[in-house]
């Protein structure tokens, strides 16, 4: 009887130690990074079973709010925090780039395959409402031999606050002074024209049901859903197809500031796709909890190195090696 009792007590102790050693990391934010982060969690947990993750994909804005109020251990965002947002946080927040992605400009033009060539002026003109017909001379001039209809362009954009919109409007602001002055960049802006769709699904749905429409979606979404998309003229004047490789090239020529709040739209690299962006994980430099702090830093180190191989298969562009080195140094500065 005593043996049984001893066994039960020992089991209870082992169980309690097992629970005591388990660390739950809470995160929230970007929907764009959700598939990648879920994959990372699964793989990382296999070799680190004592680390549990819970990530709520509530959008970049929600991620910034949650990390600012310290209701999660890390946030994730597709648009960097503004200086105003950072000065409202109860501590210094580090931006850690985790993945890069591209925004594809998709269209529904029956009979027109992917690869319609669009220049920055054309794209800004369409979204400003100044180019309204598909057979506008500016478009036909870039696409000789393509049978463009004499129909109205149906402009589609996101209706919800999204990092994809941030990247897209960041690009338009960088190539069009008129767009920058009238609309600007942000996760949610006052669109001059167009129909709003919620999420990539909403935009895609509007594109599919509206012949003559044009919209923007994440590259991974466009590839998975076989959407026809445009080749965009980059800063060097080359028309570039959105691919993982051309997205990675966008970071090659980018100026990386010390706080990592960089933009890779309109990259000077001649092979870069011009509408590319980054998703950052947001963490405090001074972590409140030693165990969680160490676990988060260890996880990020793994995700930006070994983890990048996993996400490449999911249409995310891997981080350049030079950037990974800088990230490692930044992680060394995190206190916990």
């Amino acid at each position, binding site marked *: 009887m005593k043996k049984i009792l001893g066994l039960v007590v020992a089991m209870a102790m082992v169980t309690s130690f097992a629970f005591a050693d388990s660390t739950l990391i809470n995160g929230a934010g970007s929907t764009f990074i959700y598939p990648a982060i879920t994959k990372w969690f699964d793989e990382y947990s296999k070799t680190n079973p004592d680390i549990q993750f819970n990530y709520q994909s509530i959008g970049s804005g929600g991620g910034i709010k949650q990390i600012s109020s310290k209701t999660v251990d890390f946030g994730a965002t597709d648009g960097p925090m503004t200086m*105003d947002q950072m*000065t409202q946080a*109860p501590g210094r927040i580090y931006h850690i780039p985790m993945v890069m992605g591209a925004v594809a400009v998709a269209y529904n033009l029956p009979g027109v395959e992917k690869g319609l060539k669009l220049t920055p002026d054309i794209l800004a003109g369409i979204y400003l409402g100044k180019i309204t017909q598909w057979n506008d001379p500016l478009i036909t001039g870039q696409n000789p031999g393509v049978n463009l209809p004499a129909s109205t362009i149906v402009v589609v954009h996101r209706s919800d606050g999204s990092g994809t919109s941030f990247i897209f409007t960041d690009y338009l602001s960088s190539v069009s002074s008129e767009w920058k002055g009238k609309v600007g960049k942000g996760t949610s802006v006052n669109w001059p024209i167009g129909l709003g769709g919620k999420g990539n699904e909403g935009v895609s749905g509007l594109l599919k049901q509206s012949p003559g429409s044009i919209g923007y979606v994440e590259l991974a979404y466009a590839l998975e859903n076989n959407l026809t998309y445009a080749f965009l003229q980059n800063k060097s004047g080359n028309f570039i197809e959105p691919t993982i490789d051309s997205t990675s090239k966008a970071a090659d020529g980018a100026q990386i500031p010390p706080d990592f709040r960089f933009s890779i739209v309109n990259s000077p690299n001649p092979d870069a796709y011009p509408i590319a962006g980054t998703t950052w994980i947001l963490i405090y430099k001074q972590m409140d909890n030693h165990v969680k702090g160490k676990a988060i830093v260890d996880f990020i180190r793994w995700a930006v190195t070994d983890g990048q191989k996993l996400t490449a298969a999911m249409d995310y562009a891997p981080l350049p090696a030079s950037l990974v080195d800088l990230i490692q140094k930044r992680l060394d500065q995190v206190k916990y």
Partner: protein
Amino acid sequence: MKKIVLTLTTAMIFAWQGLSFASSSVDALIQKLEDKGILTAQDATQIKGEIASDEQNSQQNTFKSMLPDWLNSLKFSGDFRLRDQIERVRVAGTTSGRLARNRGRFRARLNMEDQVNDKVKVIFGIATNGENSAGAGNPRSNNITFGGNSTSENAFNKPTAVINKAYAVYTPASWATLMGGKMDNPIWEPASLLWDPNITPEGGVFQLQKKVSDLVTPFSTNAYFILADNTPSQATSGFKTDPYMMITQDGIKGNLTEKVYYKAAGSYYGVSNPNHIVLSNRPSASGLSGTNNTNSFDSTKAFYNNSYDLIGGAVELGINDPFGELLPSPLYVPQVGVFGQFFANLDLSSSQQGKAWQMGAYMGSSALNGWGTWKLQTYYKVLERDSWLDVFPDQDFYNGATDTKGFRTELDLGLAKNVWFVLSWYRTNVFKYFDHLNNGATNDAAYSMSAPQDLVQADLNFKF
């Protein structure tokens, strides 16, 4: 395989939910599956979170769909403040007497805002009725003192509430705003110089603001505020004699770099006919403190003698993250800034006391957002006796009188989400001729005094 199990499990749980079992039953089921090893702890947590979120959304959407549109767009907000204050004030008619006391106070405000349509919203707010020796509705305070503020208020007297604001906002374009009613003060000050922060002026306002670039956003505020409706005894020449105020404030703001920001504005205040009626809520001429200034006050009629034409401006310059990584991480300083403000009353000769100015600095978080956020601010200000109507300045700064000078220092500490603590210290004094008529002096030169006052306030604030 795992995905299939997860999907099947989720589907079963949702079906279970569909049978209207309580969420605790669903949790129990998930726990069972976890115990049996079908779900990992992480999967269980994820499913519970998703179910809770879906359930909440479903309930909210059902409830919202039952309400009319205008009710769906109705927003409530408010705040509650508990205060303990220690004050050491001079005794009227003396230069050396001091009276020290401790008071507990509270203030509660509730606001409702409804977006009537795409371009119009209406804001309505009630608040505790600030105590006022001249009657109800002190425009400069919504404080209620524990135990009452007078001999007739004690033994748990029940205070009343007042309409704090009621106004409509029309936005015909993103760069233009029209407001009418009793409103939040639209005039910008880097810190309180001319205006007590509790004042909600009445009248109409036209505002313009358009961002040109990150560097420059011009703005303009133009207000017409009515100070008093003429009393019958004064109404010999109709509405033209009503005291009113016209203000124009024009300025620019923006970022010189990503880290350096600024705001600057020039303002004109024209106050007409203040000598036509008794303006209420002036600082008391008797009691613990007060002001009776020769040039702005006729002791017989208790009217202001002067009209006021103020011209001046304000500048604020700040730096975000000024120290970068230089300081150790626990000493993070998000922002530092300095500001200054100056006004002169053009209706007075240069020898008269018609200037008001302040200089200050601040450091800390740009907003209090939970534990760890903080802000420290201090400024020094001078209000010469005829620089401004003494019914408007900060009531905690030498009882809101003019002919005053002093420091105000404030430390704000975020304690939790929507909860913060504020410690304020006012160290104030007479500027030059304060209250000389009440003290028997026959002219300005014959009477001057030093009568410092200290006021320390500890506030616990709650926002909802």
